[in-house]
């Protein structure tokens, strides 16, 4: 009976929760994609036959397991960003994964089946050098961690420290490697550069120093780069100057034997060893890399070195960490990917003991032509099976998982974990719609031809409609499961309300993506080779899809921050193809770019590029554009902000495309530095020019399109003296319109600048809390000039109102919603470090909020001032879909005034729609069409019937 009651209670409880999250709307308008980042360490989970996991430790400080069948993330642990969460080493033993995190700060053990934490120990301070598993009598029980001055041994089962020993002469000797061969001894190898190698052997049981010796090695500078332990405690080092190998028996530690190599013209020497099992000794075979694409497999056999095989992999897919984790159990195999022709790769398996290629192991697969070259290969081969699986990591951070006959099971685009900038582009119209549009787009040529054109386009429309009907009829007969409306390049078209757009994303790796905003599917990708690692990107839409038959055009400005040189990549954002327009060569370093609102004769907006001589070049630079530029030149201004010198300067364009500096503001860098400069978004519309007061008069907004919000932070970070400054500057005249300083405050400052307001967030060191501050600018009760806005003719200073609030959480990023016409009220989208995105109505951040509610303020719908801003749970637009490390939020208007499209990117990508003023222009999802139409129909028939009855009755009465 009690159980029954409990069950009933549970049912009620669960029903309640289901209603609370709007289950029917989950995933309807939104999607999330989870990424892990560029892979640093990778292990196949091979301890169980049925295991379908691959474990990844990445450079984004993420430790995750992927399902090898689907490529989905099984579980994922996101650590702190920066060096504090950096994963230094990853050891795999059975179903435990041991990670060293944060430069040897923490040692963690994870259970790989469910991703639970086994244990975590904080290690003694010291710079981390190396780690290894320590086995004894065939079982691994301990893990050794080598630091700069000490070595410690921990139990694998609970993480407890077994012993810790200081290293002898650690101030002179640079200890770099730790090694254990499974015979009760732990060897620590150190080097005094260009002098000798120090070898210390510890006992596994109690940490006692068993042996200690130093061997002369004047040619050696670094052990991990040029030495490897093979066979039974045999250290092999390579010397590239004398082209010879040195061997040292660690157990005897006498001196190094020199074995000269019979090779010529070699310039790289890299050694890779093969360790099949941490509890056992490594094999006696090892790799020697002789060149960028030449490897030899050597065998050390009782003092002799025998060459087994010479490999020539075309692509350089070998790396050092690789070989220490590569082979699986005793089936000693190795591989060599080779690029046979343009984009087909082959992978072969070789037996490491003999150097022979295994039969039936050739695997041919085609690489994505828009991807990068392979960088790293990890594979899993089980003892009893012939087949094997390979995961290939390419230079564009993509992971491809391949099964034996060359079948690509899945591909993950890990480059998307590091999106730098993005734009949303409208999809093109369908062919028929475009036909109609084209009719009006072209030049008019005579009445008759126009009529014919119209008729033909109508005919085409009719044809398309009939085809659509036929398709509907045809599909209706098929089972529903087969009728799948998957998005592909062919059927890409704008929907009714322009809710589906193309997301163009630029990632740090230099790979561009085109993503369908409805499903999140990647429609195109393009890898830009030779992108410098610290490049700056600026993405601009030059031509939208509105100008059929001209294709849309996006331009990506890529700037190398070291040399300052920039290049342009011009492409079609819908298909990702390079445009036939050749971008201009830019011999001079580029400082900034400026998109002008006017277009050339092909409807492409003109892009101005400012070089370091403050000369301007236009793209496209046709005669027509140059002529237009000459006419427009007196109205074109631009500003440059040099944060390192604390200089803001404004320039005016001359008709000969040179520039003239017209204003300059210097903020002394000793006191404060410029953190960010925010202008207004060019596609922002403001519907209402003022605010209605309680007495029905109007307070006009100060809508200066040239206004800039400049945020500065003090260089002095002492909590009593630090401050955050905000300056509102007119970008044309350099006039400082308002200046505010927040004392005892510290960054990071997040700013949103829109309409007539600026909202910024900072950390108040005095009260130890996050605070929001809002500045609003008003012209007053009268407009100075209602038809035109010119910064050069503004004698009046705007009224400035400001208010501050307390926010209960720190924030990662902030953006304002944006709609087509700007009628809908605005919300602020705030990305929290916890992974939520809060949609905070701007109404709460209004400096006109009164302290005491009066009749007039109530009339205006002003909320009385309260210093605390609450976060209501229903304001989270991503309900339980946590987005890790939100770095940016992008908002775009849709065709519906009520709807704003939102993309949050960081480690994950999340897309949804928000309705800041509810969906006032759309019927609700659950609108009862059936009821309404049936009532209408019933009424219609009732009218018809009653009309007939009335007629009959009248006739009867006439007869009477």
């Amino acid at each position, binding site marked *: 009976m009690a159980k029954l009651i409990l069950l009933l209670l549970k049912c009620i409880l669960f029903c309640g929760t289901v209603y609370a999250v709007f289950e029917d709307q989950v995933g309807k308008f939104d999607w999330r994609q989870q990424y892990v980042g560029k892979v640093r360490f990778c292990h196949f989970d091979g301890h169980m036959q049925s295991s379908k996991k691959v474990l990844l430790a990445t450079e984004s400080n993420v430790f995750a397991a992927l399902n090898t069948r689907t490529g989905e993330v099984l579980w994922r642990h996101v650590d702190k960003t920066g060096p504090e969460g950096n994963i230094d080493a990853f050891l795999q033993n059975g179903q435990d994964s041991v990670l060293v995190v944060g430069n040897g700060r923490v040692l963690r053990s994870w259970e790989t089946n469910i991703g639970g934490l086994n244990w975590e120990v904080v290690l003694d301070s010291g710079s981390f050098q190396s780690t290894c598993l320590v086995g004894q009598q065939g079982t691994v029980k301990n893990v050794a961690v080598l630091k700069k001055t000490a070595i410690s041994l921990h139990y694998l089962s609970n993480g407890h420290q077994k012993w810790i020993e200081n290293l002898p002469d650690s101030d002179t000797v640079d200890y770099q490697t730790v090694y254990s061969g499974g015979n009760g001894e732990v060897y620590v190898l150190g080097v005094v550069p260009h002098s000798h190698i120090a070898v210390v052997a510890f006992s596994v049981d109690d940490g006692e120093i068993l042996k200690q010796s130093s061997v002369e090695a004047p040619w050696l500078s670094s052990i991990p780069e040029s030495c490897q332990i093979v066979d039974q405690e045999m250290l092999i080092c390579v010397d590239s100057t004398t082209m010879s190998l040195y061997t040292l028996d660690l157990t005897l530690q006498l001196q190094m034997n020199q074995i000269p190599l019979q090779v010529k013209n070699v310039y790289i020497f890299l050694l890779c060893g093969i360790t099949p099992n941490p509890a056992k000794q490594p094999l006696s075979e090892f790799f020697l890399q002789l060149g960028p694409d030449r490897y030899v497999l050597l065998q050390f056999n009782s003092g002799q070195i025998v060459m087994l095989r010479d490999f020539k992999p075309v692509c350089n897919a070998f790396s050092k960490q690789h070989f220490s984790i590569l082979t699986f159990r005793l089936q000693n195999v190795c591989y060599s990917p080779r690029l046979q022709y343009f984009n087909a790769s082959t992978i072969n398996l070789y037996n490491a003991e003999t150097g022979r290629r295994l039969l039936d192991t050739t695997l041919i697969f085609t690489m994505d032509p828009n991807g990068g070259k392979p960088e790293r290969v990890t594979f899993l081969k089980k003892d009893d099976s012939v087949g094997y699986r390979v995961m290939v990591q390419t230079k564009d951070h993509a992971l491809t998982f391949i099964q034996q006959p060359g079948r690509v099971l899945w591909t993950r685009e890990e480059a998307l974990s590091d999106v730098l900038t993005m734009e949303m582009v409208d999809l093109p119209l369908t062919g028929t719609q475009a036909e109609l549009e084209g009719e009006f787009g072209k030049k008019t040529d005579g009445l008759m031809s126009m009529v014919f054109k119209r008729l033909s386009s109508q005919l085409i429309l009719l044809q398309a409609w009939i085809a659509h009907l036929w398709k509907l009829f045809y599909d209706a007969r098929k089972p529903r499961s087969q009728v799948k409306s998957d998005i592909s390049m062919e059927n890409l078209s704008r929907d009714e309300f322009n809710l589906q757009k193309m997301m163009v994303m630029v990632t740090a790796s230099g790979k561009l993506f085109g993503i369908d905003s409805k499903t999140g599917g990647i429609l195109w990708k393009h890898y830009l080779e030779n992108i410098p690692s610290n490049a700056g990107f600026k993405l601009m839409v030059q031509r939208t899809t509105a100008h059929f038959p001209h294709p849309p055009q996006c331009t990506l400005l890529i700037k190398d921050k070291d040399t300052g040189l*920039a290049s342009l990549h011009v492409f079609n954002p819908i298909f990702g193809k390079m445009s036939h327009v050749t971008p201009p060569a830019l011999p001079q370093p580029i400082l900034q770019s400026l998109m*002008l609102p006017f277009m050339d004769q092909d409807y492409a907006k003109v892009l101005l590029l400012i070089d370091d001589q403050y000369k301007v070049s236009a793209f496209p630079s046709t005669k027509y554009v140059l002529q237009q530029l000459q006419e427009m030149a007196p109205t*074109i201004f631009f*500003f*440059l902000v040099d944060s390192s010198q604390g200089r803001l300067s404004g320039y005016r364009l001359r008709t000969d495309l040179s520039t003239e500096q017209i204003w300059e503001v210097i903020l002394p860098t000793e006191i404060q530095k410029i953190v960010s400069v925010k*202008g207004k978004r060019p596609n922002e519309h403001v519907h209402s020019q*003022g605010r209605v007061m309680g007495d029905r008069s109007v307070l006009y907004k100060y809508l200066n399109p040239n206004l800039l919000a400049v945020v500065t932070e003090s260089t002095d970070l002492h909590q009593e003296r630090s401050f955050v400054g905000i300056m509102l500057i007119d970008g044309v005249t350099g006039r400082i319109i308002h200046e505010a300083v927040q004392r005892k405050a510290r960054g990071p400052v997040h700013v949103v600048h829109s309409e007539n307001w600026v909202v910024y967030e900072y950390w108040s060191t005095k009260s130890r809390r996050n605070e929001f501050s809002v500045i609003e600018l008003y012209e007053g009760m009268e407009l100075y*000039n209602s038809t035109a806005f*010119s910064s050069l003719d503004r004698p009046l200073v705007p009224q400035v109102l400001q208010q501050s609030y307390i926010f209960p959480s720190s924030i990662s990023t902030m953006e304002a919603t944006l709609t087509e016409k700007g009628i809908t009220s605005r919300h602020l989208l705030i990305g929290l470090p916890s992974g939520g995105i809060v949609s905070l109505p701007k109404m709460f951040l209004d400096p006109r909020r009164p302290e005491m509610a009066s009749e007039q303020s109530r009339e205006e719908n002003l909320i009385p001032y309260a210093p605390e801003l609450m976060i209501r749970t229903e304001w989270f637009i991503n309900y339980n879909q946590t987005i890790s490390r939100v770095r940016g939020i992008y908002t775009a208007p849709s065709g519906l005034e009520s709807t704003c499209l939102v993309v949050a990117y960081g480690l994950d990508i999340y897309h949804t729609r928000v309705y800041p003023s509810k969906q006032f222009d759309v019927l609700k999802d659950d609108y009862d069409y059936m009821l309404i139409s049936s009532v209408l129909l019933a009424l219609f028939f009732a009218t018809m019937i009653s009309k007939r009855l009335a007629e009959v009755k009248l006739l009867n009465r006439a007869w009477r």
Partner: protein
Amino acid sequence: MASPGGQGGVLSTRGGGATRRMKWALELSLGNTRGRGDRQGAQGDVVYPIGYSEKPVPDTSIQETDKNLVEKRCWDVALGPLKQIPMNLFIMYMSGNTISIFPIMMVCMMAWRPIQALMSMSATFKLLESSSQQWLQGLVYLVGNLLGSALAVYKCQSMGLLPTHSSDWLAFIEPPQRMEIMGGGMVL
């Protein structure tokens, strides 16, 4: 014993039952028209009582016009709108200044009635034709209606329905045209 006169002038043979047709019947009273099939007799051949004339006799006493009465009647018509004003004021006071369906209906009614009356001025004038003070009465009628509509406008005003403030025209202000083009930012 049974005499025909004693039976009320109705002679009938007995034993035939109710359903049987009488052989013959004599009806003496003409007003009794219960028989079927003789509708015409009831309408057409009506015999009027003595002294009843089918044609109206012209009334000579009405011919003389009572001027005073006409004047009074015409003044009633002319003063009608003015008399309504106190009533309207009361309704106005009662309905309040909130904007909801009931006060709006009231205001609409109050505004519509004078307008309707002004539209049908000519008909009213025809009514007042017989009066000697026709023009004065017309003027009073007009003033009364104008006052009524003014009252309605005042009510609209106090309810805030008239576009008399600058905020009512805010939606029609076009965004100002941008005279300068500006761009730039941090040095990339």
